[in-house]
C-alpha cells in the first residue's frame, strides 16, 4: 500500500468538471510531479488532498485511512502555494515557526528548528527580516522552510518555481531535488513546466481536462508519450495520422519506417525532431526550409513539405541548411513512436 492513495476522485464546479475519477498513488520518500496545461485540474487536485476543496466523488486515503471529514489543519500535510502566501505581518522567523507554534512546540525548540531550516534553504540568520524586503527567490525559500517546519507527511508544491526567473529556477530545481532526497520528504508537486517536472520528479503524472493522461518515469513519458495530446504538450509537433503495414507506415509525408514489432493498422505517428534528417534534395521527401532556430548545442529547423503539415527537424549546428534552401528529408525508425489513433486523452500508458 502506498502512503497516499486517490481513489476515483472527482470535483465539479457547476457544469465544469475539474477532476474526473482520478486515481493516484504516492509512495513514501518519492517525488511525484503532476504536469499539465492551465485548467487541467492539477491545482484542484492538490487542494482536494490538502482538504481545502471537498471532493464530489471518490476518496483520499493516507496509510489506507479515509481522510474525508478530516479538516485541512488536522491532515498533517504541507502545502506551498504558488504565490507563497507568506504572512505579511510576521517576520521570516514568525512565518517559519507558525506551524510549530500552532502545534504547541516549545519556544527554544522552535527557534532551533527555524535556525536549522533557514540554514538548510540557504538563508542563515534571516530570522528577523521583513517579508516585504525579500526577493522572489528568498520568499520561495522562506515558504519552503515554513512548509517543511512541521515535518509534513506529504509536502505539496503548487507551481513551486513558477514566478522565478529561469536561471534561479534551474538552480533551485537541483537544490530542491537534492534537499528532498536528503530529508526523505514525500513530495507531490504540480507544474505546467515539463523541464521542471522532469528535473524534480521520480514519477510524472500528465493531466488533461481533469483526467490523468499518462503516468510514468520522466524517461518513459519522454520516450513513449501515450497520446498525441501528451506528445504535443511535451513540445513534439510532428504528429500525423498513419497506417502501419509491416516495417513502414503510410503517411501524408510518404513512407515512414517504424521500429520492429509495431502493431499494424491505423494509428497516429510521432516522429521526434531528431529522427527527421535533412539530406540532398532528391534523397528524400522534398521540403523547403522556412525557419532556423539556434539552440546552442543544436539547431531546430522548420520544414515545409509539398503536402501535409510542417515538420520540425533537429540537427547539429554544423550541417544545418539555410532558410530558403530546398532539402530532402528521411526518417529514422528509432525516433518514431506509434500513438493510439483516437486521441481520447483517457489512456493511461506505461
Amino acid at each position, binding site marked *: 500500500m502506498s502512503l497516499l492513495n486517490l481513489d476515483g476522485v472527482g470535483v465539479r*464546479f457547476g457544469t465544469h468538471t475539474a477532476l474526473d475519477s482520478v486515481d493516484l498513488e504516492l509512495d513514501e520518500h518519492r517525488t511525484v510531479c503532476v504536469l499539465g496545461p*492551465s*485548467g487541467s485540474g492539477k*491545482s484542484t487536485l492538490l*487542494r482536494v488532498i*490538502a*482538504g*481545502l*476543496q*471537498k471532493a464530489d466523488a471518490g476518496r483520499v486515503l493516507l496509510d489506507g485511512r479515509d481522510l474525508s471529514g478530516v*479538516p*485541512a*489543519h*488536522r*491532515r*498533517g*500535510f*504541507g*502545502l506551498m*502555494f*504558488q*504565490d507563497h*502566501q507568506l*504572512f*505579511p*505581518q510576521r517576520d521570516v522567523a514568525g512565518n517559519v515557526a*507558525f*506551524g510549530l507554534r*500552532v*502545534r504547541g512546540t516549545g519556544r527554544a525548540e522552535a527557534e532551533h528548528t527555524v535556525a536549522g531550516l533557514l540554514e538548510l534553504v540557504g538563508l542563515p540568520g534571516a530570522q528577523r527580516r521583513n517579508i516585504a524586503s525579500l526577493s522572489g527567490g528568498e520568499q520561495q525559500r522562506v515558504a519552503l522552510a*515554513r*512548509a517543511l517546519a*512541521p515535518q509534513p507527511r506529504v509536502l505539496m508544491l503548487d*507551481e513551486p518555481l*513558477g514566478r522565478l526567473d529561469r536561471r534561479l529556477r534551474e538552480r533551485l530545481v537541483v537544490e530542491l531535488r537534492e534537499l528532498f532526497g536528503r530529508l526523505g520528504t514525500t513530495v507531490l508537486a504540480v507544474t*505546467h513546466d515539463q523541464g521542471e517536472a522532469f528535473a524534480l520528479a521520480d514519477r510524472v503524472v500528465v493531466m488533461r481536462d481533469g483526467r490523468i493522461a499518462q503516468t510514468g518515469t520522466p524517461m518513459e513519458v519522454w520516450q513513449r508519450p501515450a497520446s498525441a495530446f501528451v506528445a504535443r504538450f511535451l513540445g513534439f509537433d510532428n504528429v500525423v495520422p498513419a497506417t502501419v503495414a509491416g516495417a513502414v507506415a503510410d503517411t501524408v509525408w510518404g513512407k515512414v519506417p517504424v521500429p520492429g514489432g509495431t502493431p499494424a493498422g491505423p494509428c497516429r505517428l510521432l516522429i521526434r525532431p531528431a529522427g527527421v534528417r535533412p539530406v540532398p534534395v532528391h534523397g528524400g521527401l522534398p521540403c523547403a526550409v522556412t525557419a532556423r532556430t539556434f539552440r546552442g548545442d543544436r539547431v531546430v529547423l522548420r520544414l515545409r513539405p509539398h503536402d501535409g503539415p510542417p515538420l520540425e527537424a533537429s540537427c547539429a549546428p554544423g550541417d544545418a541548411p539555410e532558410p530558403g534552401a530546398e532539402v530532402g528529408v528521411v526518417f529514422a525508425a528509432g525516433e518514431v513512436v506509434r500513438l493510439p489513433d483516437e486521441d481520447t486523452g483517457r489512456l493511461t500508458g506505461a
Partner: protein
Amino acid sequence: MNASPARDGRRPQRPRPSRGRELALRLGLTAVPAAFFTVFFALPVAAIVARGTRADGQWHTGHLAGVLGDHDVQQVLWFTGWQAAASTALTLAVGLPGAYVFARFDFPGRNLLRAVVTVPFVLPTVVAGSAFLALLGRGGLLDDLWGVRLDTTVWAILLAHVFFNLAVVIRTVGGLWAQLDPQQEEAARMLGAGRLRAWRTVTLPALAPAVAAAGLMVFLFTFTSFGVVQILGGPRYSTLEVEIYRQTAQLLDLRTAAVLTLLQFAAVAALLAVHARTVRRRESSLTLVDAARTARRPEGPAQWALLWAVLTVVLLLVLLPLGVLVERSLTGPDGYGLDHYRALMSPAGSGATFLVAPVEAVGNSLAYAAVATGVALLVGGLAATALARAPVGRGPGSRMLRGFDALLMLPLGTSAVTVGFGFLITLDEPPLDLRDSWLLVPLAQALVGVPFVVRTVLPVLRAVDDRLRQAAAVLGASPLRAWREVDLPMVRRAVLVAAGFAFAVSLGEFGATVFIARPEAPTLPVAVARLLGRAGELNYGQAMALSTVLMLVCAASLLLLERLRTDRSGEF
C-alpha cells in the same frame, strides 16, 4: 495591491460550509445590527414622521402639498441644494490639485500636512462654525483688520464647508491617485499622447469614479449640514436640517418638520443609491502599485508653483481659522490670558447658562463618546463581518446584503434632529424606557459612528486573501486560530482607525445630542452652542475657549489615528 489570480484564471473557491449553515451564520451576524437600526433609527424616525402626518387615526397627506407649496420651504429647499452644489464644486476645485500634490509629490512634512488637512473633517461642526465666526464674523480677525464681515454672507458657509470636506477629496481621490501606476501614463505618452492628453485619456478615467464618489460624499455632508449653517447662517440662510430643527424645537410645528424630514430622506436615499453605483464601478480592475513608490520631488518651476499654491491655500483655509480660534480664546478684556479658560471652571463664571461648570462637559463628552465608540464598533464590526462574507454574485441574497450596506449609510444623511427628537418620543415608555437614562446620548452618537466603522473595516476584511487562511490551515491552525492569527492582526489597525473615527464623530455629534443631552450633563458641542447663543464678550470668549478644548481633544484622537493609518482606510 498585487492581484494574483491563480494560473488557472479562477480564484480558488473557499470551501464553504453547507448553504444552510452559511446563511444561518450570516443572519446571526446581521441580527444585532438590524435590531439596533430598527430600534434606534427606524422606529424614532418613523414615529416623528407619523406624528407629523397622522392625527386622529387619519393620514393627512393634504398637508404635504401645503408645505411643499410654501414659499419659505421652497426657498430653504433651493438654498440647501445650491449651497451643497456650490460647496461641492469649490471643494473639488481646491481638493483635486491637493490630491495630486499629495499623491505625486514628495516633499518634507507631507505626512504631517496630510494629517493636518484631516483634522477639520473630524472636528465638530460647532468648532468649525466657531472658528469661521472668529475669522470672518463680528469681532473676528478680518473685522479687526479691515472691517470686513462675511458671517452673514453665504461665503462663510461655503468656505467652512470646504474647510470641512477637503479631507474627503484629498484622501479618497489622492489615495487612489497615489496607487495608480505612473507607467500607464508613460505608456500612453510613448504611444504619442501629450502630457495633458495622457492624463485625460488614462488617469482621469481611472480616477473619475473616485472623484464622483468623493463629490457625492461632500454633497451629502453639505446637503445635510447643520452646525455650520446654524452658527454662520444667521436668520437669512437655512438648510433643510436647520429648518427641521427650527420647526421642531422652536416653532413646535411637527407636521411641517415631518414633511421636511421625508423630503430630506428621499433626497439622501437618492444620493446614496447613486453613490452605491459609483462605488461598485470603482471596484473595476485597475493596475495599482505601492503608493510609496509613485511620489517624487517636484521638477521645474511649474510643479514647484503648483506645490506652493496648494500649500498656501491649505494653510489659509485650514490652519488660519483654527489659529484664529485659539487666538480669540486667549483674548480677554485686558489682553492675552487664560481668563476664559478659568471662567469655564465654575458654573457661576458662565452666568446663568449652565447648571454645572462648563468644563464638566469635557468629562461628559469623553464618557459618552467612549460608550458610543464601543457600541459603534460592536454593531459596525458585526455588520462588516456579515457583509465581507457576502458572495460577490447577483443572487437575491447578495442584493439583500447590498441593501443592508446602503441602509447602514442612511443615518449619515438623515436629519440628526429628527433622530434626537424621535428618541425622546419613542424611547420613553416600556418596554424600553430610556427617557432618564444617560445611554440615550451615546446610542444616538453610535448611530453616526457605525457607517464610519463599516466603511473602514469592510475593505480590509474583504482584502484579506482567503489563501492566507488556507496557508494557516495546512500548517495546522484551526479555523478559529487562523482567524486570530491571520484576520485579526490585519484588521486590528483598521479597527483602531475606525474606533478613532467613531470617537471623533461621537465627540462632535450635535444635532441629536442637543435634544437629548440632559441640562446638567451637556456635551462639549452643546455647551459651545449654548455659550454662542448668549450675547456678551465673555460668553463669546468662553465659547472660543471651549471650542479650543474640543478641538484639542479631537486632534489628539486624530493624531493617534494618523499613526495607525492604513492605506486601505481611504473610503472617507
